[in-house]
């Protein structure tokens, strides 16, 4: 016979504190769940896209080709990370509630904050993992393409007897600037930060929303407004631009939405600009601030939620 209760009367009931291990358990369950939902099939699509963008359009010059490869793939990365973040966050919380999985979890000694953080961390791990894989694929394709393009361009210059040191130096410089550099990875980091902020917003909304669709739609609205928040802010800070009512509306919108354009360094990176450390600190710091405050607000709302 199996003993069900080896210790039927345990009088000590320790106080439940925040536990990173518990958060990790919840995060890993979330990751496993999402992976087994085949949500990462997007990765395969991305690889095809990267290969396509890398080797199609051979009519245009090397610089254009490398530029196009980076623009298209980094753009796809942005879309991937935000869509995955929003949709999976919007799906997970209501689904747990609907399936009563939430009851079984929260009827264990699990503080609600641990649950929220675990879910968020799970989605972020998934996005982060996906971005790392795609970064590796992109780097590989870019490096291959860069080497091939440089070789063929130099060969064609040589063929036309135009391979003066100046011309070769210029081609090398352009290709090196447009090719694989550390900046590319910082761009991916910025994409991750943006997706992380949007995911936290989705978590906040899903803690008050009554339907998945509501969460998804409103989060995408916030995402779009968030990209134009700097323009809205301008309306608020420059009184001559609009009336009092206009400024009040601008204030409400700007105060509610995070400024997502702050993470849009992708274009500059594609352009070949070097990302300074200061910019990385700025972006990481502001993303951490958004996430901390939004997570705190989510906790305030979720801790009182009637299940």
């Amino acid at each position, binding site marked *: 016979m199996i003993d069900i209760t080896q210790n039927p009367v345990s009088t000590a009931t320790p106080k439940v504190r925040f536990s990173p291990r518990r958060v990790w358990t919840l995060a890993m369950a979330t990751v496993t769940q999402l992976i087994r939902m085949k949500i990462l099939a997007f990765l395969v699509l991305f690889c095809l896209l990267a290969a396509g963008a890398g080797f199609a359009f051979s009519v245009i010059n090397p610089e254009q080709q490398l530029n196009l490869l980076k623009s298209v793939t980094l753009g796809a990365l*942005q879309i991937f990370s935000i869509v995955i973040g929003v949709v999976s966050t919007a799906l997970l919380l209501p689904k747990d509630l609907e399936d009563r999985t939430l009851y079984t979890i929260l009827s264990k000694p699990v503080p609600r904050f641990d649950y929220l953080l675990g879910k968020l961390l799970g989605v972020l791990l998934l996005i982060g993992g996906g971005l790392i894989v795609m970064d590796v694929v992109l780097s590989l394709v870019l490096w291959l393409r860069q080497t091939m393009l440089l070789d063929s361009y130099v060969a064609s210059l040589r063929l036309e007897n135009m391979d003066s040191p100046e011309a070769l130096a210029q081609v090398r410089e352009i290709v090196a600037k447009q090719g694989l550099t550390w900046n590319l990875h910082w761009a991916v980091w910025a994409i991750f930060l943006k997706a992380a902020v949007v995911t936290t917003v989705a978590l906040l909304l899903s803690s008050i929303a009554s339907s998945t669709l509501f969460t998804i739609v409103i989060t995408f609205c916030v995402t779009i407004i968030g990209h134009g928040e700097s323009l809205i802010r301008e309306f608020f800070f420059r009184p001559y631009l609009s009336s009092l009512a206009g400024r009040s509306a601008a204030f409400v919108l700007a*105060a509610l939405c995070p400024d997502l354009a*702050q993470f849009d360094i992708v274009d500059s990176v594609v*352009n070949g600009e070097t990302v300074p450390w200061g910019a990385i600190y700025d972006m990481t710091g502001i993303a951490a601030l958004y996430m901390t*405050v939004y997570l705190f607000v989510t906790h305030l709302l979720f801790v009182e939620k009637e299940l």
Partner: protein
Amino acid sequence: MRRKLLAIAVLAIFGAVKLPLEERVTHDLRGRRMLAEPLRLGVGEDLGQAGLAAALGGLRGLAACMFQLRAHVEFTNVNWAKVDSLYKLVTRLQPRQARYWDEASWHMAYNAASYYLYNQELKPALRGQLYHDHVMRGVAILEEGLKFLPDNPRLWQKLGETHWHRTKEFKKAGDAYWESFQHGGLAFTERFAGYAWAQSNDPESWRKGYALLKRLYDKGGPTPGLVEYLKLLEQNLKIPAARRIPDLVPLRKGPDPQEGPVR
């Protein structure tokens, strides 16, 4: 309920506090050339819904890429007006990207201009006019790009090349090459500034060109081109024979160009 009110209060206070902070970070990042300036669309520039959504959704680079590909299709269809208007959108979306200005200008000043110049179906006078108009459009594009990127050596170099090869305004070409070199352009732009000044009609430019080329000459390693243009400048500026540099090869006496240069 109390916590809900607290949540709303936290959101409102954070919203008010974050605005100046965001303003500072954005300003900082723009200063570091990490963020683009806000999108300013003129009247009659139609991004289309997809383009606008992409631009607002943080995908300006991608939208620009797509418009550029469309421009490429129009280029193969030799629809120059469309190429120009599409590149206008591309450069609006990505004004800090020099290569878009470069390509836009190249399409106008070289491809479109040459297309009209050699179009046998047009009247000769019209051909000349269209050639001139498109070259000037190319120059205008580069000049506009330089407003966004005043210290971009590549755009200055391209402006120099366009003035040299297309408008034949050598003073402007020389000035542009010189700017390119000043902003870290490739080594040859320094020489080319001198060469262009040498061919101009402006005595002040001749003096600048002479000083520049003479300095390069004295540093050693004179190339045939350097010597040729220096000789030209010596003539223009009437430099006394004693201070003139020796010819690289003997001057030719007869009409056969193979025998050497003439003065």
